């Protein structure tokens, strides 16, 4: 089971995942956040969380993208991981929404090998709207 970051594939580092309710009692915690959870409830505990993992049950279910954006807007600075069925073409989208990494299974990794998981977005229309791109 590889983990995909901007640097390519790597083995998944070991971690004990906890439900969001446990965050208050932990340090440097790893939290499994269901994709229908209210992230605002986690906000008071952000400084005790090192990693949040958001599931993608199927790649066409894009809730996780908005959940990631909301966590970042709320000020979460720790690591953010998408896990489950994401396809290589969604990697750049996940990064743009605030994810740092994607956890996929071996079958998908075999079908969509490392070189397909490209981080570069190309010209970004929203950066241009903010006046931060050429053109």
């Amino acid at each position: 089971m590889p983990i995909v970051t901007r640097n390519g594939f790597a083995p998944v580092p070991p971690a004990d995942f906890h439900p969001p309710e446990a965050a208050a009692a932990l340090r440097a915690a790893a939290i499994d956040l269901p994709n229908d959870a209210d992230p605002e409830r986690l906000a008071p505990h952000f400084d005790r969380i090192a990693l949040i993992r958001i599931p993608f049950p199927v790649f066409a279910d894009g809730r996780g993208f908005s959940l990631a954006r909301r966590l970042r807007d709320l000020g979460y600075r720790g690591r953010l991981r998408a896990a489950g069925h994401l396809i290589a073409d969604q990697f750049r989208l996940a990064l743009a929404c605030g994810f740092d990494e994607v956890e996929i299974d071996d079958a998908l990794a075999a079908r969509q090998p490392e070189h397909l998981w490209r981080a570069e977005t190309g010209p970004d229309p929203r950066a241009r709207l903010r006046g931060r791109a050429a053109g």
Partner: protein
Amino acid sequence: MYRHDEFDQAFLRARIERFRDQVARRLSGALTEEEFRPLRLQNGVYLQLHAYMLRVAIPYGTLNSAQMRRLADIAERWDRGYGHFTTRQNIQFNWPRLQDIPDILEALAEVGMHAIQTSGNCVRNVTADHLAGAAADEIEDPRPTAELLRQWSTDHPEFAFLPRKFKIAVSGAPRDRAVTRAHDIGLRMIRDGVGQPGYEVSVGGGLGRTPVVGQVIRDFLPKAHLLPYVEAILRVYNLHGRRDNKHKARIKILMLERGIEALRAEVEAEFARQMAAEGGPAVIPDPAVVARIEAAFAPPPLVPATGPAEAYETARRSDPVFRAWTDTNVLPHRVPGHAIATVTLKAPGAAPGDATAEQMRVLADLARCFSHDELRVSHEQNIVLPHVRLDDLPAIHAVLRRHGLATANAGLIGDVIACPGLDYCALATARSIPIAQEIGRRFADPELQRAIGEMRIKISGCINACGHHHVGTIGILGLEKAGRENYQITLGGDHGENLTLGERAGPGFDAEEVVPAIERLIRAYLELRSGPEESFLAAYRRLGMAPFKAALYGATEGRHAA
């Protein structure tokens, strides 16, 4: 009009290369068909009944002659010599081969066109009033807003996998020609008490299986807050829209299930969070960028006329055919001495919205010579020459006549809207084009059409309602009943600013009975109306369903009672 700059060109090139690569990976098996599907849809590629279909965006319905000419080239080179203009300011090519599509996309990109997000569960091609920048009643041109939304929504990383498609329409005039209340988000440009420009925002509109008139979620949104507010609506929808049932996945269902008040509260809370986010909201555009977009839509240099339009008046006096055409197909322009001319793609017996390559080239030439190089595509599947001199109308009309494009029926019974239906569409339950053609033939007589007056017949080939039948004065919905095509009739729909859904008249009709039924309706209307100035819709509102129902079913009640 807006022209693609270096950024847009670079973006399109990168996008086409990515799609080429995706097609190759589909063929190699790296992408499953299920995984490839949303990727091809977001590039405008559908799998239809007989072949792939490519849906090309005509953003806010505006295009220039070079673009129209390129559509003609594509129709000839990669299709069967024609294209189909849709009710959403797109053009569809029905017969391209999948392996040719990246090349077609390149041909489009050369003239600043694309097929991005014309399909799929994402923010679709943004539509706007087809008379933008020309209509006499306009408050403000809606196209800079539509272009801003186009740039914002293009390849938006957060909203590429929504629960369902998402449509936005913008109107800049009190007369709503963009059917804003039938969109997931409808924007109407207004001014507040002190004259500041902004929008009335409606949400949750849509036709389809569950037709819903959009409700106002914000009475007045200052212009500068547009993108964070729209982003807030989309985020709430992406997080909470239903994903368990595709028929309940549009934002209208979220609105109906939670109520507009609860939805408003969530959107406002999300909007407030974005405005308060560190470093400000992610999507407030740079004023210089907005100013550049607005400048791109500066009106063309029309010279206001000072005297009467002699050539125009003379032709009207001497040529009754020209006169009839100007009566129906020409609208007032905001600049004196000018007009807006509608070219209906609705000759008797024609498939509504279809144009041949030759007709597209004729329209391109007319736009270049007479309309400051601009054309528009309307949701009524017609083409508009938005900026013509009154005195040029006789020459324009003569050219249109030579090419079978001078049908004088804009807004009349022959101006039928119809979706592709069972002749092309994989979802269809009945044909719609042959019904439209039959109506065109039965009511071909221009005298009769004028006598009937304003009338919008809209036909859909299934419950998805791409032909907008719910908002037709007469709506026709093609269904399948016991293996036969069966057509339901609705009456009293209105696609204007008082968006009204039509009422179902009763049991459906077999294919060969539909047009006779329409004829009975029309005869009843002509007898019942208080005078020629009372339109069908007005008569229906005054009299209610009963007399029309009697006309439809009276004589043959027994046969339809089952």
